[in-house]
């Protein structure tokens, strides 16, 4: 309701709408109601009868109108005689308490109230003796003031309010205030805030508690609900750990107001050095966009990346233009098993591409003839000595598996199931390559691996026969545009780079993806290309060149072409072109990097302010990657100073293989957490994760005043939401909450201006009607 409408309402009806909402209607006349009814009937009856007797020039319609107007006027008078009143419970002045919670966080420094900061409102209205709002509250209530941010404390002096806390734990603050005022008659809690809430506990739980205690929360939202001009990095997502040399795919969410039609550059920095670029475009004002940037990471160790959009002219908040991202780059060597059914160029070039890669060990089992194998890049003479692994423990040692042109009948049924489980249970990546003995042509239809493949396989199982051939030219799909597997080093325009590659060929007829699978690189037969079985010509043939799908705990990918080496060898490719090597290195990193170890540890959150608790969460499995319950698990936490403490991890009894623990870091810097699972006294497996303790600027993410949250708190607890412009009646409204010590007031309604206006209106209408009809 607008201010003018509210004032008009109050003029006509004497009281504010809230008074009517909170009060109860009653009749206050000293006489019985029956006497008033009889009196009214006595007054009305002569009027009705007089119109029946004297008809004069009037028509029946005139008499009906005049009679109705007269009766209505008399009814209003009789109602006034009955003395209608409003019974209203109000707090007894200064007998009740109000908990006043003031936001002391850094975001209150934002100057989005004209030329004034949010904090200025708190200082002017809520503090000291001159503050208008605090004064009105104190006239009616005992006020207990709390300051909240990361911590909540009773505010003894306004001088201690510095608006410097790095968090706003609003939910925690309400809970703490409610509990500390539990022993006094509490009328309401008043929250003065911009609505930022970094509490990890659910708000809904606290609202239920407040409703249960019937404590209304009155919220005062300070700040603009929508900035005039601001751009913000609102979220950054990426893998927390990658293999050295990987292109890390960083998903960046950017929000803005006032930048319609603008294209802004994005930077990813490592130690103030720009290591990746991107850009984001906005077509509409208020748009939020998500973009993906590939970030090359070569040096092992902990990297604190900063994703940044440069501050723009006349921007509201500059602190929300950057977000940190913690990434641990592994320097180890990932063992990937490559099984190939025949010596072929693809194998030779792929191996050459990763041969010098110190982070990938492509252990190769190559069938050179029937029952004759060549093992390459094995650790020792025992590795794969008996051919393809026959046990899960042996197979699951690898981080990923590449299946080349090798027919399904090469494997036993158990081995095929093991390969499917490699992705589904172990959580590894399985890559299927094209070839005459692969996919449908390799007889995989109906095997456990057919279910695991991201593509629907077609084609006749006639290994070594040419049942299909198509030339394919690659095109990067939108999903592939920023995928880590398709980043080609320094290629500034990856889509153009992929389009310019020479055509490759496939002998596997694949046209459909499984539901949920994603194509990263699509292939289409060029106008002068071939497609079809011998004697067949298929026009406009299209099939995926690189696609993947999640499969259980891991994922599977398909590269159903037989000669990606063309991207290295073709006459159109320059001798020093490294595209092919880059592609395969990224591809192998991608399929191996997400493979969990037997202990998979996570921290929540992985970046915290000092003094905040960190939860350690771990999944522990045995050598077959079956979840292991009730194992001795401990987290060794090493602080930057070198101090080490052990955090015991407890098995979460209702979750197989899951263990939890928590600790509170008390030093700034990176804390290394090594989670170890033991079998007796021997170490079974371990995983290492890192938490960064720093002064974070989370406060400035989503820094616009969150009116929706504050309204929800008020609505769900029976309070009201105010802005600085409407907060003047706060104390009066709280007084009507019926909480604490109250007294019932009787408010007369008969003397409302609206009643007199109604009476005058009715009489005036009768006179006007008579004049108009020439009856007077």
């Amino acid at each position, binding site marked *: 309701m607008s201010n003018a409408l509210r004032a008009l309402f109050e003029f006509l009806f004497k009281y504010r709408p809230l008074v009517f909402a909170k009060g109860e209607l009653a009749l206050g006349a000293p006489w019985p109601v029956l006497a008033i009814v009889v009196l009214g009937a006595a007054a009305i009856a002569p009027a009705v009868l007089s119109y029946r007797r004297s008809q004069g020039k009037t028509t029946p319609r005139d008499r009906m109108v005049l009679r109705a107007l007269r009766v209505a006027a008399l009814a209003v008078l009789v109602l006034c005689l009955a003395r209608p009143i409003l019974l209203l419970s109000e707090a007894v002045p200064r007998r009740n308490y109000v908990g006043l919670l003031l936001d002391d966080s850094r975001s209150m420094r934002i100057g989005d109230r004209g030329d004034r900061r949010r904090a200025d409102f708190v200082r002017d209205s809520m503090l000291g003796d001159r503050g208008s709002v605090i004064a009105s509250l104190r006239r009616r209530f005992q006020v207990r003031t709390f300051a909240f941010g990361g911590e909540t404390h009773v505010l003894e002096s306004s001088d201690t309010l510095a608006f410097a806390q790095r968090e706003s734990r609003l939910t925690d603050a309400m809970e703490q205030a409610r509990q500390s005022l539990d022993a006094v008659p509490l009328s309401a809690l008043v929250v003065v805030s911009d609505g930022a809430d970094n509490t990890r506990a659910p708000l809904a739980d606290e609202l239920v508690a407040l409703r249960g205690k019937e404590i209304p929360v009155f919220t005062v939202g300070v700040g603009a609900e929508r900035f005039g001009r601001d751009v913000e990095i609102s979220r950054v997502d990426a893998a927390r750990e990658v293999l050295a040399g990987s292109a890390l795919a960083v998903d960046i969410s950017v929000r803005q107001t006032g930048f319609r039609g603008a294209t802004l550059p994005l930077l990813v920095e490592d130690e103030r050095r720009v290591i990746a670029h991107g850009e984001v475009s906005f077509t509409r004002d208020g748009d939020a966009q998500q973009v993906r940037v590939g970030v090359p990471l070569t040096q092992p160790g902990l990297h604190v990346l900063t994703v940044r959009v440069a501050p723009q002219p006349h921007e509201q908040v500059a602190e929300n233009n950057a977000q940190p991202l913690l990434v641990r780059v592994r320097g180890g060597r990932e063992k990937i098993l490559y099984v190939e*059914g*025949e*010596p*072929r*160029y693809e*194998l*030779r*070039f792929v*191996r*050459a591409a990763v041969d010098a890669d110190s982070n990938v060990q492509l252990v190769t089992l*190559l*069938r*050179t*003839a*029937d029952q*004759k194998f*060549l093992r*390459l890049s094995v650790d020792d003479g025992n590795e794969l000595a008996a051919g393809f692994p026959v046990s899960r423990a042996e197979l699951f040692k690898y981080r990923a598996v590449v299946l080349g042109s090798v027919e399904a009948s090469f494997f036993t049924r158990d081995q095929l199931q093991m390969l499917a489980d490699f992705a589904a249970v172990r959580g590894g990546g399985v890559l299927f390559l094209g070839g*005459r003995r692969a996919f449908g042509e390799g007889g995989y239809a109906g095997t456990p691996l057919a279910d695991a493949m991201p593509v629907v396989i077609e084609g006749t199982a006639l290994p*070594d026969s*040419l049942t299909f*051939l198509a030339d394919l030219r690659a095109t990067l799909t939108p999903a592939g545009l920023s995928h880590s597997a398709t980043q080609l080093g320094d290629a500034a325009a990856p889509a153009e780079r992929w389009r310019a590659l020479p055509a490759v*060929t496939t*002998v596997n007829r694949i046209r459909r993806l499984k539901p949920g699978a994603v194509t990263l690189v699509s292939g289409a037969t060029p106008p002068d290309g*071939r497609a079809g079985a011998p004697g067949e010509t298929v026009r406009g043939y299209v099939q995926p060149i690189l696609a993947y799908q999640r499969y259980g705990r891991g994922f599977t990918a398909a590269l159903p072409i*037989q*000669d990606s*080496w*063309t991207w*290295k*060898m*073709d*006459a*159109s*490719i320059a*001798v020093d072109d490294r595209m092919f090597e880059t592609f395969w290195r990224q591809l192998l990193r991608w399929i191996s990097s997400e493979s969990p170890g037997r202990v998979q540890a996570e921290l929540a959150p992985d970046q915290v302010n000092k003094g905040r608790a960190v939860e350690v969460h771990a999944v522990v499995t045995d050598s077959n990657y079956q979840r292991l319950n009730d194992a001795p698990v401990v987290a060794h936490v090493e602080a930057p100073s070198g101090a080490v403490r052990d955090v015991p991890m407890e098995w979460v009894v209702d979750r197989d293989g899951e263990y939890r623990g928590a600790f509170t870091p008390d030093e700034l810097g990176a804390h290394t957490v090594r989670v170890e699972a033991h079998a007796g006294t021997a170490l079974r497996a371990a995983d290492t994760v890192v938490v960064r303790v720093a002064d974070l600027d989370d406060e400035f993410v989503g820094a616009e005043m969150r009116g929706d949250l504050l309204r929800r708190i008020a609505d769900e607890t029976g309070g009201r939401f105010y802005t600085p412009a409407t907060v003047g009646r706060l104390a009066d409204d709280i007084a009507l909450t019926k909480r604490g010590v109250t007294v019932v007031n009787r408010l007369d309604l008969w003397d409302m201006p609206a009643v007199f206006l109604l009476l005058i209106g009715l009489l005036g209408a009768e006179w006007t009607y008579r004049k108009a009809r020439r009856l007077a």
Partner: protein
Amino acid sequence: MRHGVGTGVRIALGLCLVAAGAQAQRGRGRPDFSQMLGDPNSYYTPPDFRGNEPYDGRFTFARIKYRGFAHFSREGPGWSHDYPRSESHLMRIMRDVTSIRPFIEDGPRMGGVIVALDSPELFKYPVSYLSEPGGWFPNEKEIAGFRDYLLKGGFIIVDDFGGMSDWANFTAQLQRALPKAQLVQLTGKEPIFDAFFKIDLNIIQRTYRGSPVYFGVYEDNDPRKRLILVANYNNDIGEYWEFSDQGFAPVPLSNEAYKIGVNYLVYALTH
């Protein structure tokens, strides 16, 4: 022993190389009667050639052709000697003893394809075969193709040459393409001789006056890396492949020639 050629031999080879280099670049490695046979800048077409099988991803034997008619015999110029029976026989052996399923024949086409060093088609076949390099006088474009082919990952088997003149011409052309390349004598202990069969180089296949000697060029001249070229000096294993069905040589020697061929190809496809 990594460098099996004695110092004296290497010096002698080097001198010959320098002496022959200038002649070879002008195409005068030996008295050039071949110009009488036709345009030295044109390609000879073997009578059994029925066109190249279109590339389809299968392993296909690729024979390198060069211009002119040098080393001309009843089988044509040197590059075409033993075509197509040589590769046809080898591919059948490959199919029978290995898991490779190469192109063997398709109607009138048999054996493999014929490609020029300056043709983009060459790069569809990362393993290729050059016969009789003694008569090979490439122009700059072919030299560039040869260089790019090897640097990108190609592998060339050089066969059927012997004597100082052939050697001098071959090394001179190689130096033109890869000035820093070092030809290293192979001892028989290298992985290429154990890639599929265990090869004993002491089983002599004598087709030239001298004893066969096997040379190789390693990528970046680093013996820890792969061989990018092997050269059967004083040898002609293609001849054994070609005539293995006609009693040209004792069966054991033909077998050894096949074993060397199989090993070369398996090595090239795996290293």
